[in-house]
């Protein structure tokens, strides 16, 4: 069964977790991703499972190198996430997390657009519980906003798929392109989940509001399913190069000033997605390899960073950079593991980001996209600045916060999960051959040569020098208790405000309408009073009296008619 439907292990696991408890539940949670990964290992590229339903040709499972790569990745991410969350006793989160991971696996093996749509929506409805599980007023409203965006993306996908299929293309999910009927709808549906600029605010809104463990799952799946879908449906689409470049650059400005450290990581997640989107847009074999390889490494290092911040949140209950600091004294292991993640996302040689990001950058330069290349270099320096330095610096160093006295290392399972992530970061970075062998194309790319290592080290060392100088000179913006406006302001503030203003403008109109209606009612009442009131023509006798009169009239009439 595992070979015929790879998502079954995680989805069945979620169902069993819902009805089990204690150590049995823990065992099921650990076993489900491992069994699922075993199932992926058994899959043969080229396998296709098809059936007919109501005249539609459906392909619930289609196996190729691309889907296998993501299949491994999602099971790996689910396993690390499960280990990380073993200490919590919250059935809702456990079920949601496994079902969410299962939906992601189902989506990347979906061979037709309808199956993809089903898992697309399942991703939305399962993941929202990881936000709601925080059980606060904020998480409820954030969760609802998140759900509206996610389900909306699914509706666009369905509309696009119907249009696409009704134009005679069938439902098969392969290259779609923007020129296909419904292509733009599907593109935007993918774009919402991939965090395209202006469509990204659900991500920076919801991810930092989820539970410490929930964010680890959230950062792994939804956006990577979108990257997979873009790589499958829209490789080589030029507009993606522009979109990806903007995605790589604009979030780093927000990340520098943002106070909530998990929101900083959410912005840097969009920045990393930008690199992948650029790779898909360039569309050469090297670029596509780079995009999916970066998706792979990003899940692990971003997961590691989210886990380290989750550990800080778990221990201190605080996530604002302005309130944290000095925690290296009490959480040295977490601090070191966080710095491994930071080195990986910054693409230090020997860490995982280096072996994947460099493929996209190399592809940009080979294809002659000079501006894009310069922008990606800027983004690469910027990511070191905000994710590589800012995150560990403000959480673990900077000034001593009030939490230093009481802080301690997080539970063992959290440390184990972070160590697993860190090992993978260093392992992939030092021995990239294994990851490269899983990639869809064989390009012969090798990241380790003197020029490349030296130029990357120069870029990073001088970025760090810039941070140090700005910090020592007092130019670096301090962490402030604040929020910063982003696109979500439009629907959280501007639209409600506009509605309220409009209502206030309408109020006088509404009042005069109501006054006129009241006058009309008054006129009707007085007319009725005139005819039926005390001295009205129709009110001179009691109803019983008038009844008797009318009965007498009718009897007399019938008598007259009878004798006539």
């Amino acid at each position, binding site marked *: 069964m595992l070979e015929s439907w790879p998502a079954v292990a995680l989805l069945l696991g979620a169902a069993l977790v819902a009805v089990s408890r204690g150590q049995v539940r823990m065992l099921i949670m650990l076993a489900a991703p491992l069994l699922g990964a075993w199932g992926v290992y058994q899959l043969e590229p080229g396998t296709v499972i098809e059936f007919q339903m109501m005249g539609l040709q459906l392909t619930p499972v289609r196996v190729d190198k691309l889907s296998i790569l993501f299949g491994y990745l999602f099971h790996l991410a689910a396993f690390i996430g499960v280990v990380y969350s073993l200490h919590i006793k919250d059935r809702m989160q456990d079920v949601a997390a496994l079902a969410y991971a299962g939906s992601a696996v189902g989506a990347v093996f979906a061979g037709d657009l309808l199956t993809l749509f089903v898992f697309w929506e399942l991703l939305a409805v399962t993941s929202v519980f990881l936000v709601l599980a925080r059980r606060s007023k904020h998480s409820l409203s954030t969760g609802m906003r998140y759900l509206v965006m996610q389900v909306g993306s699914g509706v666009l996908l369905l509309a696009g798929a119907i249009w696409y299929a009704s134009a005679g293309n069938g439902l098969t999910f392969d290259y779609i392109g923007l020129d296909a009927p419904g292509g733009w709808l599907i593109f935007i549906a993918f774009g919402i989940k991939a965090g395209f600029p202006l469509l990204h605010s659900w991500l920076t809104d919801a991810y930092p509001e989820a539970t410490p463990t929930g964010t680890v799952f959230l950062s792994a799946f939804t956006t990577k399913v979108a990257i997979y879908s873009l790589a499958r449906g829209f490789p080589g689409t030029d507009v993606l190069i522009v979109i990806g470049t903007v995605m790589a650059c604009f979030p780093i400005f927000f990340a520098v000033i943002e106070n909530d450290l998990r929101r900083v990581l959410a912005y840097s997640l969009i920045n990393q997605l930008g690199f992948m989107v650029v790779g898909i847009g360039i569309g050469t074999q090297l670029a596509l390899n780079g995009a999916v390889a970066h998706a792979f490494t990003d899940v692990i290092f971003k997961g590691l960073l989210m886990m380290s911040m989750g550990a800080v949140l778990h221990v201190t209950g605080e996530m604002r950079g302005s309130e944290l600091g000095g925690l290296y004294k009490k959480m040295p292991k977490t601090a070191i593991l966080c710095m491994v993640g930071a080195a990986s996302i910054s693409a230090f040689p020997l860490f995982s980001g280096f072996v994947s990001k460099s493929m996209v950058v190399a592809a940009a330069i080979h294809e002659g996209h000079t501006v894009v290349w310069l922008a990606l270099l800027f983004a690469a320096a910027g990511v070191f600045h905000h994710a590589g330095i800012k995150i560990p610096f403000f959480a673990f160093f900077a000034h001593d916060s009030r939490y230093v006295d009481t802080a301690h290392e997080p539970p063992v399972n959290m440390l184990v999960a972070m160590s697993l992530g860190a090992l993978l970061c260093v392992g992939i970075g030092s021995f990239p051959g294994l990851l490269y062998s899983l990639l869809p194309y064989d390009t012969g790319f090798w990241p380790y040569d003197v020029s490349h290592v030296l130029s990357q080290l*120069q870029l990073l060392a*001088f970025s760090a020098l810039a941070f140090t100088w700005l910090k020592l000179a007092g130019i670096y913006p301090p962490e402030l208790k604040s*929020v910063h406006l982003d696109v979500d302001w439009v629907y959280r503030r501007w639209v409600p405000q506009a509605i309220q203003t409009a209502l206030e403008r309408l109020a006088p109109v509404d009042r005069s309408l109501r006054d006129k209606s009241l006058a009309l009612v008054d006129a009707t009442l007085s007319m009725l009073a005139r005819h039926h009131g005390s001295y009205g023509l129709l009110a001179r006798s009691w109803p019983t009296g008038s009844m008797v009169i009318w009965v007498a009239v009718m009897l007399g009439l019938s008598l007259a008619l009878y004798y006539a």
Partner: protein
Amino acid sequence: MSADKQKTYLFDNPRNVRRVVLGLVGACVILIGLDLVVHRHVSHPWEAMFGFYAVYGFVACVLLVLLAKEMRKVLIRKEDYYDETLPSANPSSREDPRA
């Protein structure tokens, strides 16, 4: 616990902080110095310039921070900004003119 409080940690000593900064500056000097010795393969003519990546990294980060500071002036709000009730655009219209 009280003994713990008196324990001094690595960066409580300002000399260690200075060492880290000096180490970073030293690394930067060595890395840019290597540009004189190592011939880097280049795919783009600008890459061949002496210290291109070093200068680009430094300037990019300084510009990033300076621009972000300007951006903050426009975008920053109080922490509870989204928790507040909406301010009325036209407060007088809330009052009942008939009253």
